């Protein structure tokens, strides 16, 4: 009985000792538990808002950051031009190479066809009697044949379209005439001395030429290679056309009549 009481006292002391030794640790654990619980509660409360914000960002990312990203990319490209060129060069190179190869194949085919045609007995006899162009001129003329794509008769001051002939499909010829007149006026005002006129504008495979007369100007858009002979013929035709129009002012008042005249003039030019 005494022994049992002794053991009990020992246990109590041992527990007391444990309590004394682990008091700080227990307090820390308790604090940690509280913090963890608090964090869990906070997470459960905040999670829906964070999810909604993430979803909103996912949906509207371009709206919030589009401009910034575009600006960043622009700055990056500007500051790393060499790297961009290095990255693009192989792709561009391949594309350019492919395009040139395809165009050369077309040119090769076209020259072959023209040579076959021009060196036929019939053509040689025809050329012998005409005796005008060299063989090279003849072949090149065929391959890069100049074509008048558009011909406009435009009021010199107003820029109003009086008549036109068109192979292409220009949506609003009146507007084109107006803008062309504005560009002409701007160029003449900015760069020319008094009394000088803008005559040519070149872009890509097109050449815009303007011939100025007293109250009208004629604008032509031509494609192909304009050799001296074609230019001479075109100038002659346009001079004659202007002469006809200005001598008979009925043309300026009747668009369909004028358009018919333009078509005839260009047909004659092609047949020469």
């Amino acid at each position: 009985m005494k022994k049992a009481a002794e053991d009990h006292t020992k246990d109590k002391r041992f527990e007391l000792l444990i309590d004394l030794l682990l008091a700080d640790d227990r307090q820390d654990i308790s604090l940690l538990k509280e913090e963890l619980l608090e964090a869990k509660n906070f997470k459960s409360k905040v999670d829906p808002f964070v999810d909604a914000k993430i979803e909103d960002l996912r949906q509207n990312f371009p709206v919030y950051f589009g401009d910034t990203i575009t600006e960043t990319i622009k700055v990056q490209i500007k500051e790393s031009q060499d790297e961009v060129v290095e990255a693009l060069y192989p792709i561009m190179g391949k594309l350019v190479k492919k395009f040139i190869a395809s165009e050369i194949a077309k040119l090769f085919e076209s020259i072959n066809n023209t040579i076959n045609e021009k060196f036929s007995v019939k053509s040689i006899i025809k050329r012998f009697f005409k005796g005008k162009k060299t063989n090279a001129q003849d072949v090149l003329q065929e391959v890069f044949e100049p074509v008048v794509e558009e011909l406009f008769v435009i009021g010199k001051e107003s820029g109003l379209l009086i008549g036109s002939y068109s192979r292409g499909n220009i949506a609003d010829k009146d507007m084109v005439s107006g803008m062309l007149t504005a560009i002409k006026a701007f160029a003449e005002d900015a760069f020319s001395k008094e009394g000088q006129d803008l005559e040519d504008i070149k872009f890509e495979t097109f050449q815009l030429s303007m011939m100025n007369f007293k109250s009208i100007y004629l604008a032509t858009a031509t494609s192909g290679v304009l050799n001296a002979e074609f230019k001479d013929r075109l100038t002659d035709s346009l001079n004659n056309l202007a002469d006809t129009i200005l001598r008979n002012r009925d043309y300026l008042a009747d668009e369909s009549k004028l358009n018919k005249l333009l078509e005839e003039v260009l047909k004659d030019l092609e047949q020469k």
Partner: protein
Amino acid sequence: MIAKKVLLVGNFGVGKTSLIRRFVLNEFSEDYISTIGVRVSSKILKVDSTEIKLLIWDVAGTSDDEKVPKAYFMGSSAAMYVFDLSRQETYTNLEERLALVKQLSGLKEITLVGNKKDLLTEDELAVVLQSISTHIDLVTSAKEDDNVEDAFLALAKQSLN
């Protein structure tokens, strides 16, 4: 169909291009369209029973310090001078500015239009109109499509005279 060249002149930012956009395309862009030099637009409309194609030359600036090629003004049948009702500097010396356009274009009459009505309250508008001695033909708002059609109709009628 008759085609007529008409002019739209006035300081930068008074809303000329917006008026044209509203009239020609029937839409309005909030983007600020800075006009460089001139821009030509076209629109077909009927005045009484006459169908008329207006070639509208949107000419930027007419004050002394803005050099505009004189050729822009030549051969025009009518002109509309636009000013911004909310910016006083665009309607000071109106008579001088109108005289300059008349001199350059050779036109006797010019339609005078005050734009951006939507930026003023009724009281403010009344004060502005009272302060301008020149006769104003129309007060418009390109943004709210107010009187835009009428302004161009007046211009088209003027071009037929």
